[in-house]
């Protein structure tokens, strides 16, 4: 169990993030929740590729020994950039929502039609 601590941390991050998304009312907090879920998934990806005692997969002046997996690190890089893009778009939408509704409360935008 304690060996799997990184994976437990992943689960904890995702659960906390999901809690924020589902039960918080403030739009900024929802966005923070999404960012937390995303960090959790990224941590999961990176942790999958680690081998005990391995070094980074870089040959420049490498000390030798087994290397950790390069693919999960590349996937995480992609996923982080995608996260930045999504976050930028969500924050711009929040700026607009605040201008229109004068509030960041999620209940205010539940209305069907004005």
């Amino acid at each position, binding site marked *: 169990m304690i060996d799997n601590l990184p994976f437990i941390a992943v689960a904890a991050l995702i659960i906390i993030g999901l809690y924020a998304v589902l039960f918080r009312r403030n739009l900024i907090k929802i966005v923070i929740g999404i960012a937390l879920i995303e960090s959790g998934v990224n941590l999961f990806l990176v942790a999958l590729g680690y081998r*005990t005692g391995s070094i980074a997969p870089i040959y420049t002046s490498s000390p030798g020994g087994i290397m950790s997996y390069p693919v999960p690190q590349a996937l995480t890089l*992609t996923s982080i950039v995608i996260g930045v893009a999504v976050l930028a*778009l969500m924050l711009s939408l929040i700026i607009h929502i605040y201008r229109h509704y004068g509030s960041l409360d999620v209940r205010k935008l539940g209305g069907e039609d004005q």
Partner: protein
Amino acid sequence: MNIRTIAAVIFFTIVSVFMIFSALMIHPFGQPDAQAMDQYIIDNTVNETGANNGVTAVVFDYRGFDTLGEATVLFTAVAGVVILFRRLKK
């Protein structure tokens, strides 16, 4: 407690259980089960791509197409932010 809250609680519980199970069910940390793809890349990256950095070799060569998608996502986000803050009148 309206119906939306109840649905949210159920959803939250199920996903939480799933996440905890997947954290426990996956291989022990530091000992991956399979290694065919990554070991191939580690062994051949220098000769096939000429890059010393395995991660960059994966990002720009083995999985270069993903990186094109990733650059596209960034381009999309910039276009999206610009379009949201554009002037509305000509």
